[in-house]
């Protein structure tokens, strides 16, 4: 009780108008709360129509440019998709020439072990270092001023199907990293590395016995070893639960929050039980990794509903009381508002068209599943599951929160799927999937939308429909402008109070990364974004590929026009007034 009262006194500081924005962008989500909100306000709905392209740079790499640049100390840092070059641009000189570029030695085998294109989701800055992951299972730290490599640590094993495109996250002296490989039957984990040396300090798995999950006795009312008892046999050993998305941190509670991905294989009949803690949010102590609480969004997943989307931390009134919450737009189509101290479910409402479940039971936090939409090898082809396994929103497409409006701004997909599961055997270093999942557009025929969401009430406030799924991240500013990009290559500014489009520019290739905004050396506000379609869209729309004469594919049947508007690309753009 006393602790709660003290925390409530602190809340107005957290929730109120922030101090003058530093104007930089040191970590993927801008801040520990992953708000992707900037206090910069020079760009407004009134002047946004006058935005101009000011600078561009070809990354030299063709492929999905997920992630976002960093800006620290008048230097912009860009990590490319494989081969993961790190560029450092001098923002004080005309034309932003490079200070240096770092070209790591990275194993090309990783390109074939990565399920979903050779992407990279970004770097993080702390204590004079730029830290990021190479696709082949290594984390590197580079001196932010000189570009010299400081340490390189192996964290993943490609022989087990692990690759590492996610953006690391740093709290104090700890670097947090996780693997991809939910499609390769990995045994998922999060590791903490020492920032100074790169040494691995702890590894916490996402399922298995409490000892490997770093769960202290008495943590869960359901008992001990839930990471074993909720799996048939030893299916947890190859149960997936990758950590390929974003991490956030509450300094008062001293908790890091991240989502885990899908259980493997997709054929759910090979792993009976709720499969904890796949498709869950985990709250861990950064110091020793111990698991404090967890909540599973989609138990016994039979739809590939990874829960790796960002956990945005905010404080606002829910149900008449000020709450410290975590907001998460899940692949399963529900937007969740949870108490971030305890994991208590406060709000869970659909933000996309949902057919796999009727609603989320507020009392026990469980989805009320429409069992006619449950898939499995014995059940044949299940039709009309919404959302598709791309999610109501992809975890790639990091959303943003404005403390000025109290609303969240996010990309969404409007896709449904059929799902036919098959028995599959795990052969390490080969896919462990077992499903065919063709897509169709959701109701209305438009395949995506950019929306404003009220997480206190669980409802959409406005929506901009798009022809194609919206896969970019979002940045929102104190000027009440948000930016996002489309798969057909438009980068757009919208007025957040009305949902009115203010400006757009064709950036040359589909946008699958997140825009950022920063204060330049001249004091002016700038916006930067990558262009370069890929990620899942490299798999789904293989006809966007032009560079390999030995890989010629037909268009996808659900988005046959996409290749008309975009090929693969690799550009960094900067816009300003």
């Amino acid at each position, binding site marked *: 009780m006393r602790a709660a009262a003290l925390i409530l006194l602190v809340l107005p500081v957290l929730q109120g108008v922030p101090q003058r924005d530093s104007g930089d962008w040191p970590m993927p989500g801008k801040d520990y709360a992953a708000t992707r909100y900037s206090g910069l306000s020079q760009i407004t709905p009134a002047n946004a129509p006058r935005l101009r392209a000011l600078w561009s740079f070809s990354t030299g790499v063709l492929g999905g440019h997920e992630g976002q640049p960093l800006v620290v100390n008048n230097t912009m840092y860009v990590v490319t998709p494989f081969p993961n070059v790190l560029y450092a641009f001098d923002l004080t000189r005309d034309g932003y020439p490079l200070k240096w570029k770092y070209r790591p030695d990275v194993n*090309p*085998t*990783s*390109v*074939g*072990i*990565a*399920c*979903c*294109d050779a992407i990279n989701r970004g770097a993080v800055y702390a204590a004079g270092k730029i830290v990021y992951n190479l696709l082949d299972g290594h984390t590197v730290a580079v001196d932010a001023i000189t570009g010299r490599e400081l340490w390189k640590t192996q964290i993943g094993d490609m022989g087990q199907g692990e690759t590492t495109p996610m953006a690391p996250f740093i709290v104090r002296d700890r670097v947090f990293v996780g693997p991809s490989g939910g*499609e390769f039957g990995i045994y998922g984990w999060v590791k903490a590395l020492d920032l100074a040396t790169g040494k691995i300090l702890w590894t916490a798995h996402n399922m298995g016995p409490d000892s490997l999950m770093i769960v202290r006795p008495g943590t869960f009312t359901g008992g001990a070893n839930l990471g074993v008892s909720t799996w048939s046999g030893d299916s947890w050993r190859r149960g997936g639960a990758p950590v390929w998305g974003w991490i956030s941190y509450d300094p008062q509670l001293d908790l890091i929050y991240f989502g885990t991905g899908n259980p493997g294989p997709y054929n759910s009949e090979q792993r009976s039980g709720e499969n904890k803690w796949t498709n869950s949010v985990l709250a861990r102590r950064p110091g020793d990794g111990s698991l404090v609480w967890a909540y599973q969004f989609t138990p016994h997943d039979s739809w590939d509903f990874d829960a790796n989307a960002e956990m945005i931390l905010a404080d606002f009134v829910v149900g008449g009381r000020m709450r410290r919450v975590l907001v998460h737009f899940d692949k399963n189509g529900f937007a969740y508002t949870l108490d971030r101290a305890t994991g208590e479910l406060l709000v869970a409402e659909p933000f996309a068209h949902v057919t796999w479940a009727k609603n989320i039971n507020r009392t026990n936090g469980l989805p009320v599943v429409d069992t006619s939409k449950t898939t499995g090898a014995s059940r044949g082809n299940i039709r009309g599951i919404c959302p598709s396994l791309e999610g109501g929103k992809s975890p790639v497409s990091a959303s943003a929160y404005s403390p000025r409006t109290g609303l969240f701004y996010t990309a969404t997909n409007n896709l449904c799927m059929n799902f036919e599961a*098959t028995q*599959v*055997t795990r*052969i390490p*270093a*080969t*896919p*462990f*999937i077992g499903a*065919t999942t063709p897509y169709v557009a959701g109701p*209305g*025929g*438009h395949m995506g939308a950019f929306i404003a969401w009220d997480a206190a009430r669980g409802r959409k406030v406005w929506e901009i*429909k*798009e*022809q194609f799924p919206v896969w970019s991240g979002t940045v929102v500013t104190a000027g009440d402008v948000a930016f996002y990009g489309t798969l057909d290559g438009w980068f757009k500014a919208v007025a957040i109070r009305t949902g009115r489009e203010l400006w757009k520019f064709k950036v040359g290739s589909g946008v699958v990364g997140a825009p950022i905004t920063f204060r330049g050396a001249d004091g002016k506000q700038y916006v930067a974004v990558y262009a370069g379609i890929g990620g899942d869209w*490299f*798999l789904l729309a*293989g*006809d966007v590929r032009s560079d*390999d*004469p*030995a*890989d*010629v*594919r*037909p*268009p996808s049947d659900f988005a*046959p*026009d996409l*290749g*008309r508007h975009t090929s693969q690309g690799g550009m960094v753009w900067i816009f300003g007034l």
Partner: protein
Amino acid sequence: MPPSIRYPNHVAAGGSQPPAAEMTNSFASDTASVTDGSKIFSTMNCDGCHGGGALGWVGPSLVDGRWRYGGTDGALYQSIFYGRPRGMPAYGGVMSPGAIWKVVTYIRAQPVPSVVPTQAWPGTETRRP
């Protein structure tokens, strides 16, 4: 000692091809092998990277009539047996030669679209929401 394979898609220094051991597919004209090969393509998880029907997914299309590492029977065998750069695993340690040849037979039996080089979008304008 791995067998040498004739590489017709490669440039040979001096125009001189390396000596080639004969690599023939003894399952080549066997329709049951196409069916077997299709099943093996799934059970060995080939479809997980190359897509159902080998149309392409993470890994390239195997049914477009184009070959990154050579399209002879021997080159396909070598690709599967030894693996290739950029992530094609070596299957020679878990698949028998007969199983590999059946997969080669299945892949070669797939129709190659006659209009592979040209992708056109004729007709109506794309729908706008």
